[in-house]
């Protein structure tokens, strides 16, 4: 059985000029433990896709089609049942870890509540242990102390680690990461990607990685779906996409990936690196 099976997924927004599709007729398949990349520019509908899988599309939007998780249909499921799926079977990591964590609560509490929401009857002490273990698993040093800190006391890369820890605390089957490295410095990006890869190997969690950067997906995922204007324009194995792109848009995205033989690309790859600060995880 497929872990995730999306068929004909369409997300429609009402506008004064009539309904418009942010995502149109999208199909996705992911095997258990597999990794799928969704690639496209801003506004291509890739983020909306990730939200729509979870049933988290904006209130004004309408979602049609089929989203099956381990054979269970999520479209049309009651809000109460969807709630049990979110965070437990499917967890998400968002782009900007600072704004995605509530500044008013310790990271410990925010991890604990994710865990407690799906494990009724656990005690605070158990939840605290889970939170510390989750932080340790994403390689945050001194987790027992850091668990009491607030998000603003972490650096950017550390915050994203906290987000990942939070997502993994319930041991989900599927992790959806929406541009998890875009807001981070280049060296920290690599660390986060390595972490995701490691965790996937250790836990067998399926991964949907959403990004505008083909270089990022090529490192982790096996299959790629290229989106433009809410529609899938090309899909295939990583190797095939990189060596024989069929759609001109994919070619354009590939051209944007820095190569050694590309002078401009080289500059692009190096220039941001100059400003990189080491992500040592100390308090800011």
């Amino acid at each position, binding site marked *: 059985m497929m872990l995730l099976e999306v068929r004909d997924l369409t997300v429609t*927004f009402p*506008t004064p*000029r009539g309904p*418009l*599709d*942010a*995502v149109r007729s999208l199909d996705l398949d992911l095997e258990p433990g597999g990794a799928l990349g969704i690639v496209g520019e*801003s*506004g*291509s*509908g890739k*983020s*909306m896709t990730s*939200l729509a899988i979870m049933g988290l599309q*904006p*209130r*004004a*939007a309408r979602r049609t089609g089929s989203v099956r998780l381990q054979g269970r249909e999520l479209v049309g499921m009651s809000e109460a049942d969807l709630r049990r799926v979110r965070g437990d079977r499917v967890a998400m990591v968002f*782009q*900007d870890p600072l*704004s995605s964590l509530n500044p008013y609560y310790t990271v410990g509490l925010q991890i604990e509540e994710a865990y407690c929401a799906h494990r009724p009857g656990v005690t605070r002490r158990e939840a605290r242990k889970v939170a510390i273990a989750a932080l340790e698993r994403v390689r945050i040093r001194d987790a027992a102390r850091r668990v009491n800190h607030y998000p603003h006391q972490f650096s950017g890369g550390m915050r994203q680690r906290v987000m990942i820890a939070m997502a993994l605390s319930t041991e989900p089957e599927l992790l959806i990461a929406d*541009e998890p490295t*875009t*807001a981070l410095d280049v060296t920290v990006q690599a660390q986060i990607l390595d972490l995701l890869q490691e965790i996937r190997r250790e836990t067998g969690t399926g991964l949907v990685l959403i990004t*505008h950067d083909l270089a990022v997906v090529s490192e982790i995922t096996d299959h790629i779906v290229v989106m*433009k*204007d*809410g529609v899938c324009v090309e899909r295939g194995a990583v190797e095939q996409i990189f060596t024989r792109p069929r759609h001109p848009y994919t070619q354009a995205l590939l051209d944007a990936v820095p190569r050694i033989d590309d002078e401009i690309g080289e500059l692009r790859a190096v220039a941001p690196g100059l400003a990189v600060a080491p992500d040592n995880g100390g308090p800011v």
Partner: protein
Amino acid sequence: MTSSPTDLTAARAVGSGTGDTAEAPAASAAGALPAGAGGTWQALRHDVGAMLGLGYIVLVTLVAIFAPVLTSISGWTPYEFDQTAIDPDLGGMPIGPWGGMGAEHWFGVEPGSGRDIFARIVYGARVSMSIALSATLLTTVLGVSLGLLAGYFGGRVDVVISRVMDFLMAFPALIFMIAVLSALPASNRSALLVVVISAFGWPYLARIVRGQTMSLAQREFVEAARAAGASGTRIVFREILPNLRSTIIVMSTLAVPGYIGTEAGLSFLGVGVVPPAPSWGQMIAASVKWYAVDPAYFVVPGVCLFLLVLSFTVLGDRLRAVVDAQEGR
């Protein structure tokens, strides 16, 4: 279906629905389409509340301008006593229902003196409008210029101006205004009111202008102008000020009702416009003694004042909504 609208709408929905930063530029690009004064007017024109408010403001303005003409038609000046319109046996109550309203005195007469309320309302409009608008003008000039100075030049200028603003905003303004006005001589109260109101009003505008100027000063077009050798004054007036236009208009419109209320309130407390010059706040104050027996006496100026404040409030509120939508906030 063309691709770009889909793009923009989706981006907009994501941008406003979830605050996705990557898609924010597309969202503001989409929002910026109907910008400009023409667009603002087009959007406002279809808003019933805003148009009703504007209508009433125009009406009061015209009434204020043509006050002498109107009173010559109605037949009574604001200072004439009409002993025939009040009943001395009832302590000076107006004769007739509704505070003596009728063909002779359109809005009735003042109990006790028999002065024509219509004439006093019409001349009172002059006071209310001229004080509120002058105070707004002065506040805007002060707020914009000091805000620009602080925001553009920064450094010591900014420190000094910001300190003064902090101080004025932490000041018990209303009480102090009352204290000052009560101590000042009664001559030329209108001008004093304008000065005192503006002195405490400008920091609220200046603070916002300062913030926006600071962020505008970092933008590319300002950098470009600076690189091209434009002087500071030129950059401030040619590059930054035009971009603050909508903020200034909205803030000023929203400030007017506050100033109308302040003037009326100060006159109500007896430290505003000096009798016998008519002012709406002062008329309401005079009606306090009579409210139980002659409700028309406070209803007429009360309603006029309330509607004027409401009109400016609604207009300002809608204006802000339109401008915010245009700027994609």
